[in-house]
């Protein structure tokens, strides 16, 4: 039996975020909180391995108390256990401090049941850094497999895994030993639907809440703002371009006239665009 830990994050649905035009602050009101979409590929892959080889899937997240909702959702998809690592002392953590806290919590999980694999999404949609997964792997001294598009084989007995990893110019086929940490690429699988029995179980399961002490962290200088080497020194809105578009208009405003006028203006002012077109055009 394999014990798989899946790290997830509750994020605001970034597609629905607006910035206040005057104060430049994020307007969070009414923006739904969701499981980071990339993490669903990680969770589904973990559940597939569990289906195939038997196993136990623990989901873990670090966040505010309301992040429990994300964990309950993960339970309804079929995870077996859920842990919310939450403490005011974690506030203001950057990726280094976050990976410290999560790695420490995972060490506590291991005290009850050794961990064979850790799954993460390739990145979050709010921070977009893709740094926490590698950070956890390094802190736990695990093999790190990022941008995995498919898990070709798992040998539970030999504790070996073969995966396909996306690289810039192709796909690497890698073999490594468990335990390891995998970050899954988007589109690598499709999240299952929650089943009725799992939904009922999710509602009944107690999500464990771990504070800093329960997560095995004594040194507060390693977590939260204090444990973060990076500081945000300035937040500002992108500067608006001062020059607006030259709007192409003609007497008739017929499509043929408009595009004719556009080409004439553009080729006069930007002859290099014309040269470029002549090089690449297929006419």
């Amino acid at each position, binding site marked *: 039996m394999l014990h798989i830990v899946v790290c997830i994050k509750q994020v605001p649905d970034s597609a629905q975020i607006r910035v206040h035009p005057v104060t430049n602050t994020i307007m969070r009101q009414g923006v739904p909180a969701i499981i980071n979409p990339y993490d669903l590929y990680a969770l589904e892959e973990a559940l597939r391995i569990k289906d195939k080889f038997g196993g136990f899937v623990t989901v873990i997240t670090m966040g505010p108390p309301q992040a429990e909702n994300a964990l309950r959702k993960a339970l309804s998809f079929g995870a077996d256990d859920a842990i919310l690592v939450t403490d005011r002392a974690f506030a203001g953590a950057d990726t280094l401090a976050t990976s410290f806290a999560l790695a420490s919590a995972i060490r506590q999980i291991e005290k009850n049941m050794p961990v064979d694999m850790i799954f993460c999404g390739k990145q979050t949609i709010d921070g977009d850094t893709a*740094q926490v997964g*590698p*950070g956890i792997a390094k802190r736990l001294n695990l093999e790190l497999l990022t941008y995995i598009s498919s898990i070709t084989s798992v040998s539970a007995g030999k504790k070996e895994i073969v995966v396909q990893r996306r*690289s810039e*110019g192709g796909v690497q086929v*890698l073999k490594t030993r468990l335990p390891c940490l995998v970050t899954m690429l988007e589109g690598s699988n499709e999240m299952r639907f929650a089943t009725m029995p799992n939904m009922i179980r999710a509602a009944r399961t107690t999500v464990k809440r771990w504070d800093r002490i329960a997560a095995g962290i004594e040194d507060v200088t390693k977590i939260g703002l204090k444990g973060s080497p990076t500081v945000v020194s300035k937040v500002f*809105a992108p500067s608006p371009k001062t020059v*607006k*578009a030259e709007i192409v208009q003609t007497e008739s405003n017929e*499509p043929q006239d408009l595009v004719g006028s556009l080409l004439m203006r553009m080729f006069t002012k930007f002859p290099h665009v014309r040269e470029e077109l002549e090089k690449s055009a297929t006419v």
Partner: protein
Amino acid sequence: MSEETKKPAGKKKLELDPRLAEYRGIWVFIEHERGTLHTVSWELLGEGRKLADKLGVPLAGVVMGEPGEDTRRFCQEAFYHGADHCYLMEDPLLKDYRNQPFTKGMTDLVNAYKPEILLLGATTLGRDLAGSVATTLKTGLTADCTELNIDVEIRSLLATRPTFGGSLLCTIQTLNYRPQMATVRPRVMAMPKRDTTRSGDITEHKLSMIESDIITKVLEFIPDQNTNKINLEYADIIVSGGKGLKKQENFQLIWELAKVLGAEVGATRPLVQSGWVEAGRQVGQTGKTVRPKLYIAAGISGAIQHRVGMDASDVIVAINNDPNAPIFDFATYGIVGNAMTILPALTEAFRRELANRRAEAVAV
């Protein structure tokens, strides 16, 4: 670290903590795989050159790979693109990218020669390596920067990146740790001029590792087929479509124009999410950053998430039926009108124009 060693950021003319002052110079990781160099490395050298000149320190490239002509050639090219110096680590174990030996090699180099700033491309390789190196060195790393600058007084890297899907920008500093690390996406920084009169010197350093230390093995490498490769980031002409095209079949108009122009096809996130176009064609915050010579945007409103991926284009032509669409605030030319009628007219006009030109050229 004790509180007394921390220096407030705002005060000027500070003596840098001697522990931090030991770190000097700017490094750029020169990324290559299977003999192919990733040009983001040159873009970073171009930007690194400016930062190094502000600080008055040398700029170095870090080349890691299997022994052979490639690594020497990449050092040479690094000099041509602005480096003063190269750190070269050659070992057969570095043939393919693997996290463990590359992390070990890079952290050893940093600990031995102590750069104050280390820049990498925000590619699959660069992000994997940067995250691992920063955690091993316990230092700060800022991902996906769009702008880099220096606070010269405190020798601090000002790394600016979009946040909340591009709605805001934030500037991040690593004040009390070295090196200060950042990744930058391909095409965000301009390509520097290649100057073959430049040269530099090479410091070689051994990788202290043997194959049996490395747990992960590369069984195979399957290169991408050239035919279905999407070369959006480096395309010189891009035709892109958005929600304003209304129906999936209308996206065909984008393909037709792109075909005449020999252009790549891009799209906004909603179209990718609706499955009209593959994910590799998405331009914007969660997609690709592009900087073509010509970007034609049809039915794209110009939301900030899309804009951050394309506003470095030389010339932007926007077609939208809403005269108040934000895209007209930053495009070069705008046509207010129905994309479904303008696009075919544009395709025809380009076809005629370019065919005429070709005929003239033949006649001459």
